[in-house]
């Protein structure tokens, strides 16, 4: 994602609390290095940013709080983080790999 690609309007409720449903697991790949998302008949390799987002999807923190946290952790503009997180989680929600509580 580059800054100048047009973004879809935010799809997710900022007050919603994203969580990995049962059957979807974040796992460290010891042998090859890096993290993967394991799901029914799916295995997604994750980039470093996605891992940071997904580690925070505990069902406790709201999307808003997660974005705040990431913006602080990466010292990046909140708006950009918000758009990136929305696009990434939105895609996973559509594939039913993340649930919004």
């Amino acid at each position, binding site marked *: 994602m580059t800054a100048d690609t047009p973004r879809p309007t935010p799809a997710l409720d900022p007050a919603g609390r994203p969580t990995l449903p049962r059957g979807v697991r974040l796992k460290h*790949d010891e042998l090859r290095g890096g993290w993967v998302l*394991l799901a029914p008949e799916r295995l997604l390799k994750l980039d470093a940013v996605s891992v940071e987002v997904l580690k925070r999807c505990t069902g406790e923190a709201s999307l808003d709080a997660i974005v705040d946290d990431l913006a602080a952790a990466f010292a990046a503009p909140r708006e950009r983080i918000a758009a990136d997180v929305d696009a990434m989680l939105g895609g996973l929600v559509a594939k039913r790999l993340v649930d919004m509580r």
Partner: protein
Amino acid sequence: MSAPAPVPPPSLPAPIGLLAELTHRCPLGCPYCSNPLELDGREGELGTDDWRRVFSQAAALGVMQVHLSGGEPAARRDLVDMVAHCAAVGLYTNLITSGIGLTPKLVAALSEAGLDHVQLSIQDADEDSADRIAGYRGASARKREVAAEVVRAGLPLTVNAVIHRANVSRAGAVLERAIAWGARRVEIAHAQYYGWARRNRAALMPTRAEAVAAIGEIERLKAAHAGTIVVDHVIPDYHARYPKACMGGWGRRLINVTPTGRVLPCHAAESIPGLEFWTVRDRALGDIWADSPAFRAYRGTDWMVEPCRSCPRKGVDFGGCRCQALALTGDARNADPVCHLSPFHDRVDTIVLAETEGPAAAYAYRGRSPADASIDRS
């Protein structure tokens, strides 16, 4: 006894998935079953300790997901033990089941043991037709209950159906049934013709028009229900232009262990004569993956002949399916004839057209004698 798996050479990819065929026993008799015609008996099956060792070795080798299948995996009394062991060594477990034999108690115990996902097969959206296909009266009603028990236990459910002549007009209804049952995912898979499906091909193959109509219907429903249910649509490769990368490439991603412990690069590999398979009774899984003649035979692209050898797609689809190449061209090294570049491509059409003319042949039910066509089992 179970020494740590040796580290494979850097050029060798590590497998990511293991298909564990725990048994060939099954109460159903689906004529489309991909199991081999020669079914392994209970006597020769691996024991619980064998499977535990295989799962531990698989995890050390880099496998992430285990698919517990068969036959009917619920026919194994030690199923809960095996799931618990997989969970303990960090493997993601997927139970692939017909549902028959899965009692409410067993569902709860599997959930407790750490099972990650259940894939439940159904034969049709019409229950009478489904029971006829399964060769087992009452199977559909039981599957409905099992689906509810799985969802109640909090386990994610996938509904799977194999599409062929008898149900091709109701593919969309299968998808809607999966939604009604609370499945998060549905797999609509047009039959692939190995094992019993190959034997029953004349009874199973839909016409091209029927297949095309079903594909269109599923694609429409998939778009309409996006976000509600994930639809995995496996379309028949007989109608495609290029073949699929069968198994993601031979000996590249997946391992199949049979009920007796033979290790195959794909579940139909035994149909290729002359391949030497090694067994987990004699050797560690890592050694088999790296060195067994069957895995080495078609790994990578060096074994290829034309047109694959000089084709730019050879690292994409790996020349398609070896078993299909053998079945339709007589040589497993040839391009999968589904490919429009194959000199044998016309044979695909000859078969599709020839076998969809006239009334459907009678089923040879999986694992039953031809005389035993009754679906009232006791």
